[in-house]
């Protein structure tokens, strides 16, 4: 149970307003990839214990997706950032 600060709405809101959309920054391979690469992309997940980098959507709010860095053991939230901010960083 946690609170997330929506970077678009600018408010700290209850987890129930959000939807977790899974691991962030998964690379989508092209049509010429192998079956193994496709399977890896569609199904395999890092699923780490501890710090995770996920995409979340503010589904009962602005409906924007953004990146949440959190600890999936302690439920601590390290950072909430927009995709743009990662792009700028890169």
């Amino acid at each position, binding site marked *: 149970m946690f*609170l997330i600060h929506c970077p678009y709405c600018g408010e700290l809101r209850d987890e129930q307003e959000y939807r977790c959309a899974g691991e962030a920054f998964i690379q989508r391979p092209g049509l010429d990839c192998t079956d193994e690469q496709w399977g890896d992309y569609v199904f395999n997940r890092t699923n780490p214990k501890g710090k995770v980098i996920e995409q979340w959507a503010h589904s009962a709010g602005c409906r924007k*997706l953004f990146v949440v860095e959190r600890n999936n053991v302690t439920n601590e939230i390290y950072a909430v950032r927009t995709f743009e901010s990662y792009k700028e960083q890169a």
Partner: protein
Amino acid sequence: MKRLYKQAHERIDRSQIIHFHWQGAHYTGYAGDTLASALLANDVKLIGRSFKYGRQRGIMAAGVEEPNALVVLEPNSGYHLPNARATEVEIYPEMVAQPASGIPSINEDVRAWLKPLHRFMAAGFYYKTFMSPASWWPKYEEQLRKLAGFAPAPSQPDAETYDHYHRQTDVAVVGGGAAGLAAALAAANAGSTVLLLDERPQLGGELVVDAARDPEAAAWLARTRAALEAHAKVQILVRTTAYALHDFNLLLALERRQDHLPLGSRNPKLTRQRLHRIRAHKVILATGSHERPLMFANNDLPGVMLASAVSRYQYEYSVLCGSKPLVVGNNDSIYDVARDLVKAGTRPTVVDCRIGYDASDLTKLGVLVKQGYTVVKAEGRDSVERALIAKTAYSDTHGWVVGESPETVSCDLIACSGGFSPLVHLDCHTGSKPWFSTEHQAFMPACDKPHRYVAGSVNGQSNWQGAAAEGEYVGLLAAGQAANPVAAPKLLMVADFICPELGRDKIFLDMQNDVKASDLELAIRENYRSIEHIKRYTALGFGTDQGKTGNVNGIAVAAKIMQLPIAEVGTTTFRPMYTPVTMGVLAGSEVGLHSDPQRFTPMQASHMAQGAEFEVVGQWMRPWYFPQGSENLHQAVARECLAVRNSLGMMDASTLGKIDIQGPDAREFLARVYTNNWAKLAPGKCRYGLMCDENGMIIDDGVTACLSDTHFLMTTTTGGAARIYTHLETWLQTEWPDLEVYLTSVTDHWSTTGVVGPKARRLMEKLCKDVDFSAANFPFMDWREGTVCGIPARIMRISFSGELSYEINVQANYGRFLWDSVLEAGKAFNITPYGTETMHVLRAEKGYVIVGQDTDGSITPYDANMAWAVSLNKSYPFLGQRALTRSDTARAGRKQLVGLLTDEPDKVLNEGCQLVAETGSKAMIGHVTSSYFSPVLGRSIALAVVKGGLDLLGTKIYAKPLSYEVIPVTIVDSVFYDQAKEKSDGEI
């Protein structure tokens, strides 16, 4: 036991005599009494029977930690409450209470008769027996289940209601004792908003006992309580138990709003209980501690009570728990209890396992003080009649050793204290582990999470002054103010755990589950050494009291047996709930029809007026069929189907998901999310689209209209609307942020009336004058803007039945008006409203699939025989395209969608029926996904998925329904009606 003369500080109101019923007999108490105090005052000693051995049990505690006194309130009514603790129940006039245990009654319990067998019923004996023959286990189990449980379950639906209340506060203070009161006042005075919670009916906690002993405490309590009650920043919730603390300081609390009121005077407009969901910036845990009983043989005998409880009953309720009391313990607190008992006019015996406490004030009064002794056994037939006490000796290497040859002390009450266990529960709910303090001989809260504070006896404070000082300190800290730390707490001087040798006598740890010290010894002997294994093997702490009095003693005994430090043995995990929580209050008002939102289209009232039967589709209520007179489903559907095929029908299609898609890249976006091509779809045209996930399986379908080159309106399945909208948004925002596309869900913005049948054009021409409906100028899969019945509308000529069909989309608020107008105008054509069942038959006659019924997450577009809807040469491969060429996905012989015709035309297959290749076979080659009697064809039809089915057209296979009656069927093309598509233009 007796009621004392009126005392200044008592909490009962002697002017209000309360009549109540216990075990069918009539008793009286006073307003302010708990059921426990009232029963004690009436000298009722036997309150319950234990779970395993059926032993007699009395009241042991004065609060929620009570393990024995389980009762049923208001049995067999809508107010039936199983397993309430007599100590937490406030009596009200005409309350009906019964013991929650006793087979058949607490006076005579069969389990007690079986006493000679108890020696065979050690912990876990059932794992070693009842095994053979295996067929006997159900019989054994049936008998065991008769012994199960305490109170009977309710037999009536709940007569009362519940709700949830969301709160925010700067500081939440849990516990209204000295520490909590001081903390709340300090934080509020420092400017914070404060919410103060206490489970009891009035503030004060254990401080009420101090207040009775010490005028200074009484003055402080009165002053602080008054200040809090008057404080604008403070809200106080009594009768409110904080039962769980979650991350980010989400505190859940249960408020009992009416449980203390007589049934007749409860306000039906108010809820019985309320769940407070409290978001607090800071949480102060001033939860206090529970006293532990002392371990000795027969320590479960009625008349053995917690020492602190004896004082509470004396001061709060003016109930004297024994006229010949014995007070025993391992810490200084027992002397205060002894002084209380002296004040009440008794002459207690004091037994202290330690030596050295200065009790001269008591001895001067003639009190017998036996230091260096402990109780080794309680004796008495139905309740305590005497105690056996023996000498104690302590050494660092062996701990306590209890001497032989005990002396007998006559008594009718054993008030015992084995030290105090801080209520660390809430602190542990978020994963913190308590630590063992040898100084306190207790597990202490770690309090290692941010924005959290502990104060008072939960943190080891042993007197009210220390608790108040610490409360004030953390109150200031929580309010963000600097404060000087309080001095280290004055220690209570608790001795090490003392437990006499484990002989044949039963020393109870967990009273409710009859877990004895010897059970722990057995578990450890069998290598159940982890405290979790010990708990699970012996059931220690599994009761409704969650081991509040028994667990720590159990841990100490286990440590002693394993010769490990207590800290190394550790505790089991503390999890919510702190005390039991009503299931109804968790649900709150989300019960019955409110358990999930119901969605209706704007035409709902019309449908109801037409007498429609409804089908649940996701959250929607959709008309299923419109029976006339005494028609059943099949009769109504047959009539509706023929009406559409031969003349005119109408249906409410408003529930289909609608997504407005705009932007320069909207067309490209559609090409990526749908399997088919969108490049050439011109404004004014519509197209059917098929959607796959990245696994290549069909997830949705629907028609999308091109409104302009940069504006499209997508429809989705009814059940898929929210999911697909989310799916599209996710792709757009994460994978394709470079596409300039804007999505808006407009499902609720439009309502859709479908006018379907050969005469549809005739009616449309009557209703709408500004659109040319001729087949040539308004062809199939086109849409037009026009004015229908005076309302601006988008009219789409699309069809899910094969008939000429117009779907009229109007702004939702006009939906009902339009529907009613169409119905009225359609009378000339005998227009027939139809529901989802008829829609299903019509579409099945045409072989149109329903995603989720004919597909199940394992069907590709090819499997669905829809290769025509797959375009493999788009510049950007569509979602799922790559998956279609994987070895298994591309292999021959996958299950494919086909039609089935039964040899007997009247035989309608069951949907879900499995298919086999030969009559005797059990190897399934597919199953029926849709099956109906087709009125227009006069026979049954079915859709099915069959392994390699598309290559097997004309082949005879067999349906094997549940009845095992083998039904021969022939695989056919999935289009059953109007293969030549001659009907799509309707009557010209």
